[in-house]
């Protein structure tokens, strides 16, 4: 049981004319070591939700528990919680500020109070893990392309070695190869090192292919919560709120409609291939 949100509501600019109820009584549990996909229409409250998980936003009402302790209780150490729950923001490239990439990645570990040597070791490891080309390590971060900056920013959070890693649309604007590479890396971290991953994405294929569980947000509420298979099985309802199913699901539906004997609750390419092979007996 790592993160529990208990009846959390959040209202922006409370008490003024432009008050927004961004979260409305959200209760959610994120288990240790799981890979959670968070989907939802634009403005449904995903970014607001994840900022509650590392104490950047305070709930208007309700509690957030990390390993059983209320993170907003008196005397709680928010800096420690932020070091355990790493958050990579939407468009994280805007957080880069140092003179070179390597020093920038050292910023997080240094804030943890690590020595220079340790911080550099962490930065080295994180950049390696992000597969960031060595010849660019000492370049100014402002001379990088958008996707390269994104990797550096993610490395900056990875270098803090969090127990939970939350990424807010990390794949937006990456090319298909870069996207796969990033998601495979996250899956690897989860599988091999037991990291808990929360991934916000607008891409159903990514959630279907990588997440153990999918949570759908709609108008500040949890609309669905289950395995990707359970959630995407109800894709008619998802379509009504402006989302949909992974593209393979639609392909399978078309095949079934055309008279092939295939299952339609298929979420990823491998299962689809198996199903089609089975049907064609090859």
């Amino acid at each position, binding site marked *: 049981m790592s993160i529990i949100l208990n009846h959390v509501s959040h209202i922006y*600019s409370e008490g003024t004319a432009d008050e927004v109820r961004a979260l409305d009584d959200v209760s959610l549990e994120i288990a240790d070591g799981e890979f959670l996909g968070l989907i939802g229409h634009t403005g449904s409250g995903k970014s607001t939700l994840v900022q509650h998980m590392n104490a950047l936003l305070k709930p208007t009402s309700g509690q957030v528990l990390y390993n059983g302790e209320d993170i907003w209780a008196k005397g709680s150490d928010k800096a420690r919680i932020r070091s355990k729950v790493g*958050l990579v*923001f939407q468009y994280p490239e*805007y*957080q880069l*500020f140092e003179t070179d990439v390597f020093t920038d990645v050292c*910023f997080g570990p240094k*804030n943890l109070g690590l020595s220079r040597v340790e911080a550099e070791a962490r930065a080295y490891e994180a950049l390696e893990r992000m597969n960031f080309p060595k010849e660019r390590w000492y370049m100014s971060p402002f001379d990088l392309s958008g996707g390269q900056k994104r990797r550096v920013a993610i490395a900056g959070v990875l270098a803090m070695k969090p127990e939970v890693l939350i990424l807010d649309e990390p794949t937006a604007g990456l090319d298909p190869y870069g996207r796969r590479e990033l998601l495979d890396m996250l899956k690897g971290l989860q599988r091999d090192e037991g990291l808990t991953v929360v991934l916000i994405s607008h891409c159903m294929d990514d959630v279907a292919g990588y997440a153990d569980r999918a949570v759908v947000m709609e108008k500040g509420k949890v609309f669905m919560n289950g395995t990707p298979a359970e959630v995407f099985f109800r894709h008619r309802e998802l379509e009504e709120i402006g989302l949909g199913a992974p593209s393979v699901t639609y392909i399978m539906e078309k095949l079934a409609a055309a008279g092939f004997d295939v299952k339609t609750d298929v979420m990823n390419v491998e299962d689809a291939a198996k199903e089609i092979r089975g049907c064609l007996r090859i």
Partner: protein
Amino acid sequence: MFKDITLGQFYQADSVMHSLDPRTKLVGTFLYIIALFIANDAAAMAAAVVFLCIAIALSRVPASFMFRGMKGIALILLLTVGFNIFLTPGVPIWTWGPLKVTAEGLRSAAFLACRLVLLISGTSVMTLTTTPNSLTDAMESLLLPLTHIKVPVHEIALMMSIALRFIPILMEETDKIMKAQMARGADFESGNFMKRAKSMVPILVPLFVSAFRRASDLAMAMEARCYSGGEGRTKLKPLKYGRGDVVAYIVQIAFVAAVILL
């Protein structure tokens, strides 16, 4: 946290004051300020109070909003009143050690306090009932004659409205960058002055980078739309005087005349 700070404190309402032409309000405020400084007896001050009360009543802005701005100047007000009471030379009516209160001091302190309060609440009436953008428009239109002596009025007005537009954007951006750095363990609250000043670097650098990027994007977008300065340019919403404005001007002039005569 930064979104809550509103600039120019415009208060949306449907009132006579809101519907006046921004030029009328700008000129009116200007005349009002001059009148406040001409006024130096009780009768003239009373006239100013009456004028202000009418304006407030017509604006339909709750009085509490009017006086919110007063909090910010409370200290200045207190200091100036104090200095005036104790440091004006004249006939002492009360002494205590080196401090002495004079009749002239009391009188000038009272007037000064009155003036400051009237000044702030009067200008608030204008900023509460006029959006910053229409104020810029008014300023541009009123200063237009200066183009004859080569003052780039249009460009100045454009710069002002762009700056106004960008303030909330940059505030939001600051908020985002701060949160992102906090997520990386940055601490902006503890430590001595030097340490805190240093902790601003991770915010300021990305903020400036993004401000420059936005500025150059905007310049590019304007150029792509063939934007070319003030010459021969027409407005989407040209400023137009209505009947209310004529009445307002007459009242204003009457007020200034009254203050001079009283």
